[in-house]
């Protein structure tokens, strides 16, 4: 057994010991608040067991293992349905950026420990109402204020901000230069005066994202991460930290087996649905697509194990998987006929077709819309020209609103 396989076995043993108290079944019926409390408990257990900060340096409280160990643990953990959704972004992006850019190392160590133990949560404030896919168009502004800064503006789509203690934020410090040049990046205390977090209810009924308003919020210059005017670079760094996080070729919806089971259970015009060509085609095409994505992931993993950089085809995962999940979910609802009209708003997205369908549009937009992903593939991988950009080379405050 390779060292990595031994690690996987150890992780699995730990997770199995945790599952009765923290796993999918134990969480069933929890309110968000109950689930968060349970999640904090579980994170502390994970920390104590040595499965926190797996690939982070021991200097700041990590385990000093490789990215592969981290992915291995995450892939195993995903199967148990642990209440970790609150901590994924926190530990995935803001805290690593803090580690990289913040100069007060004692402060960093304390934050890292609390974030890993689930005692504190960090959010990432990038998007704005006017921005959408255009990150550099942001308008939240900071102005010099004594030896610090004063911030005013608004962010949106910030996950879990209502439960967060800290956050990282990119702001416009200079509107007179080209739009991606006048940005500066900070960390802030979410409990600061002038910060107002308002949850946004989504189409599926839940409210895990927020609008955040800033009214003369005071920021010390020591909270700055990177240079003044260097915020766009830090933002890109943030987004690129976790290139190969655990993916799901099912687009974070139900496994294809669930569809096959449904097709075996129900009839189409008095014949088993699984014998119907339409259903067979959907199953086979989805299987081939998912198998391809899985094979891409496995090859990326193998390349990382061999010390190589994985290929760019990993960027297809979300685009292809979530779009397909949306249509497959619709077809599953069609097959269920009147039986599928019933709906449980608390059902699990990976086993319930209605929930999967209702939340699929969010998946196709969050973390890069289909259109942005296609543009990125075309430009970055294939070398096609950028779209026409009338805002290019123009000072931010000269772009027509």
């Amino acid at each position: 057994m390779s060292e990595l396989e031994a690690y996987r076995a150890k992780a699995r043993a730990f997770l199995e010991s945790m599952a009765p108290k923290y796993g999918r079944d134990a969480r069933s019926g929890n309110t968000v608040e109950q689930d968060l409390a349970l999640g904090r408990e579980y994170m502390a257990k994970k920390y104590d067991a040595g499965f926190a900060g797996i690939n982070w340096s021991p200097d700041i409280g990590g385990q000093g293992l490789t990215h592969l160990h981290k992915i291995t643990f995450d892939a195993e953990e995903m199967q148990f349905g642990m209440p970790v959704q609150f901590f994924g972004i926190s530990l995935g992006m803001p805290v690593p950026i803090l580690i990289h850019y913040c100069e007060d190392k004692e402060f960093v160590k304390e934050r890292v420990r609390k974030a890993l133990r689930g005692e504190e949560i960090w959010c990432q404030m990038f998007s704005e109402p006017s921005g959408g896919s255009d990150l550099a168009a942001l308008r939240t502004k900071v102005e010099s204020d004594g030896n610090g800064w004063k911030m005013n503006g608004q962010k949106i789509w910030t996950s879990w901000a209502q439960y967060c203690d800290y956050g990282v934020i990119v702001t416009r410090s200079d509107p007179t230069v080209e739009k991606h040049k006048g940005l500066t990046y900070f960390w802030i205390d979410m409990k600061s005066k002038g910060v107002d977090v308002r949850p946004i209810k989504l189409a599926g009924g839940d409210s895990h994202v927020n609008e955040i308003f800033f009214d003369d919020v005071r920021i010390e210059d020591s909270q700055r991460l990177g240079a003044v005017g260097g915020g766009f670079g830090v933002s890109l760094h943030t987004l690129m930290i976790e290139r190969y996080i655990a993916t799901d070729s099912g687009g974070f919806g139900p496994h294809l087996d669930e569809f096959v089971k449904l097709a075996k259970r129900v009839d189409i015009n008095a014949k088993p649905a699984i014998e119907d060509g339409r259903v067979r085609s959907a199953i086979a095409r989805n299987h081939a697509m998912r198998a391809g994505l899985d094979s891409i992931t496995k090859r990326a993993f193998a390349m990382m194990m061999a010390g190589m950089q994985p290929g760019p085809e990993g960027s297809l995962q979300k685009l292809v998987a979530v779009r397909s999940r949306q249509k497959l979910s619709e077809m599953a609802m069609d097959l269920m006929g009147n039986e599928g009209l019933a709906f449980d708003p608390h059902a699990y997205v990976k086993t319930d077709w209605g929930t999967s369908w209702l939340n699929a549009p969010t998946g196709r937009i969050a973390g890069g819309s289909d259109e942005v992903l296609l543009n990125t593939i075309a430009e970055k991988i294939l070398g096609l020209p950028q779209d026409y950009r009338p805002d290019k080379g123009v000072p931010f405050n000269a772009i027509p609103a």
Partner: protein
Amino acid sequence: MSILYDEGQQAIATESRRVLDARMDKARLLKLLEQVGEHDAPFWDTAVEQGWTALAVPEEHGGLGLGLIELGLVAQACGAATSGAPFLTGGYGVSQALVQGGNAALAAQWLPRLASGEAIGCVAIAEGNAALPPAPAVSFADGKLSGTKPAVPGGQKADVALVWASKDGQPVLVLAELAGAARNAVDSYDNSRLYADLVFAGTPATELAAGDAARALVLDVMGRMAVVTAHEQVGGAEALLHIARDYANTRKAFGQPIGMFQAIKHRVAEMYGLVEIARANCIHAAASEGTAEFLTAAADARISATEAYDTNSRDCVQIHGGIGVTWELGLHLHMRRARSLAVECGNLVFWEDLLVERLQGEVA
């Protein structure tokens, strides 16, 4: 057959749109999504007040004696407004069965009440996942119904139901008063459709047609309801087209209206194509009422309208980005309605099969 709307029909279209625009309240509709057992009462009052319930009921029974073309135009306006009550289609299904069924007394008893809106009708054909079970499990014997019909639209509040049942191994269509039936409300993703499992346990009912006559009648009723629903779907799909177009023209990204990006622009053009093809099929189907090709035309309308509404709701949300998936903006009212209408009165697979079976006969 294909027709141009006459002046009266155009007036119905304009007026129904106008009234619904004036009374439509998104906040009210959003609230209904989270309540089981409530429909959009102001909409239903409007429908009754405007005489829409009477539209397709024969004049001798207190109706206006108009047909599918007119009812379709109203349904299209209702679809655009995601109006929150399923009774119009259900009431039409019941009244058509009464008009065509073989019981004049029953027709005389119920048609005036359906026309006036005093009574609410629903149609219970499906069982399990089957839109039209060939041998329904709900049974009819000695004038009484037994068994359960799942998730019947309008079932929570209807007074009377047209029920597809079995009697001595033959199918029958019967009319049952629902006072004597239990209704288990279904919590749904589109709650104002008022889905209920109707549980019959010796519920008295009256036979309208049996055997082959019942088979022919149930197909005709389903075809008619499919054409009304297809109009409703076209109304919804067209509303989404307009919302998407307006957003693409006003929302800016990278310094320009997002409608300048062909990914958005061409998608909106495709939405238009889906709407116009479905609309053309709806007009043709409504104008074919009563002809031999009616069911074929109804299937064409149903298939293209379902595709249009599902696709346009997917694409309109996608064009909006983040704001498109918020509860407040309410695009999900259309998304949910696209799905509930796609399932009600037979899914795509059902209508595809029905259409192909009819075409097979035509090609020697």
